[in-house]
């Protein structure tokens, strides 16, 4: 039960993008087209889940055992960078078109605050291994949901009569703000 709650909490109620405002750069950068957004979401979900696994192992079997908590940030970042590199190679091998459409945002998953954020949150809240994995997957799914909603809105926006001054970044940020408002509706549903 707790696992499910953690998952839903990370995906919806405490959505990393829309309530914590983490990972806004790919949220705005890769949400222009629906299918690219879906793929970016899946790639990020893959990275967040693997990161949750790896950082939990590092946290419990290396950092805590040898009293090396001062190395937490450095080791987590190494782990994340390595995993993103792995995903990048994999996507390049499987779909060169996807690799090109994600462009610079693919390696930028390395510095996506969601990924490091979830690793630090999981360590801070003392999640068990399974909880940590579901937390990571939930964070990724939440990011994917936000990205998909945003790309849907932005594709519709292409046909809308947007006032000249709001075209481009302003209207996108306005939409992001309204989405955040909508996600506020989930707040207080449960607290994990």
């Amino acid at each position, binding site marked *: 039960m707790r696992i499910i709650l953690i998952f839903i909490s990370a995906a919806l109620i405490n959505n990393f993008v829309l309530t914590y405002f983490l990972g806004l750069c790919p949220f705005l950068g890769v949400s*222009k087209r629906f299918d690219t957004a879906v793929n970016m979401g899946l790639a990020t979900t893959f990275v967040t889940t693997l990161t949750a696994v790896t950082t939990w192992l*590092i946290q419990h079997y*290396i*950092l805590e055992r*040898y*009293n*090396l908590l001062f*190395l937490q940030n*450095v*080791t987590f970042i*190494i*782990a994340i*960078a*390595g995993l993103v*590199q*792995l995903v990048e*190679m*994999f996507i*390049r*091998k499987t779909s*060169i078109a996807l690799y*090109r459409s994600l462009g610079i945002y693919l390696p930028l998953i390395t510095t996506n605050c969601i990924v490091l954020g979830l690793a630090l949150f999981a360590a801070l809240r003392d999640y068990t291994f399974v909880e940590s994995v579901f937390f990571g997957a939930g964070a990724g799914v939440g990011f994917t949901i936000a990205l998909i909603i945003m790309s849907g809105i*932005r594709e519709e*926006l*292409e*046909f809308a*009569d947007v006032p*000249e001054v709001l*075209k*481009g970044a302003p*209207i*996108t940020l306005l939409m992001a703000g309204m989405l955040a408002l909508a996600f506020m509706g989930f707040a207080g549903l449960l607290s994990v």
Partner: protein
Amino acid sequence: MHLLGSAFVISILAMGGLGFGFAVMLAIASKKFAVEEDPMVEKILGCLPGTNCGACGYAGCIALAEELVGKSAPVNACVAGGQDVADAVASALGAERMEAKRMIAVVLCRGGEAETARGAAYRGDRTCAAANITGGEKNCAYSCMGYGDCVDACKFESMAMNSNGLPVVFYDRCVGCGACARACPRDIIEMHPEDRRLFVFCKNKDRGAQAKKDCKVSCIACGLCVKDCEVPGAIELKDNLAVINHDICPQNDVPTRRCPTKCILFGEPEKMTSEAGQPAGLAGGWQARASNSGRL
């Protein structure tokens, strides 16, 4: 001292071990997921404009670069790039240089707001594609609707709508990619080699009386240009419209002299726009629409 020493050693071992572990993992992965990529493609891609305009007929600049490296596209395949790009590609590939034929967009309608009769109000989406479904505001069903789909489609900022509601091409900037021609739902914009000078600026296929009623500068199919043209058959009347066969038609102003509506014109591209009542260049109070570069 001993504690400090052990913390040092353990830190170094932990970081080193982690780094080593990831390095091994990535080394294995890079072998497993290795992608063969011709460095030539990257080099050719650098020669191309990179706007992915699609005028060459391929999916984008990357697709064209791959075709060029594979020798299945001629070195002058990039329409937008012109001679400079053709030369750069040829020298990068070590192939023989070829002449690039410059294409330009020609707007074959002069029926602006001042010339045309209007019989309907249109309150829908302000795009030609949408307005064309109901027929737009102008009576002429073949004319420019004036909502600027072509201007939005232009990636090179070489088109704008003038104060008369007609699109104008800036020929110093037009690269001939044809995006505007594809965007026009009524096929008013055509791509032509830049040395062509003689055009019929009308697409109206209605009978003369009706065409004249709808638009002051329409082709009424009187046939004077057909008679006056020095090469018989170079200009023909098809569906109440004079059509020029550019391959055989002589490039002079003989057919234009007696045109009663001045819809067939001869001149330089700039002159063609100025004869159509528009000043050439950016000056003259043109209402340039926002370019697509700043859009979502």
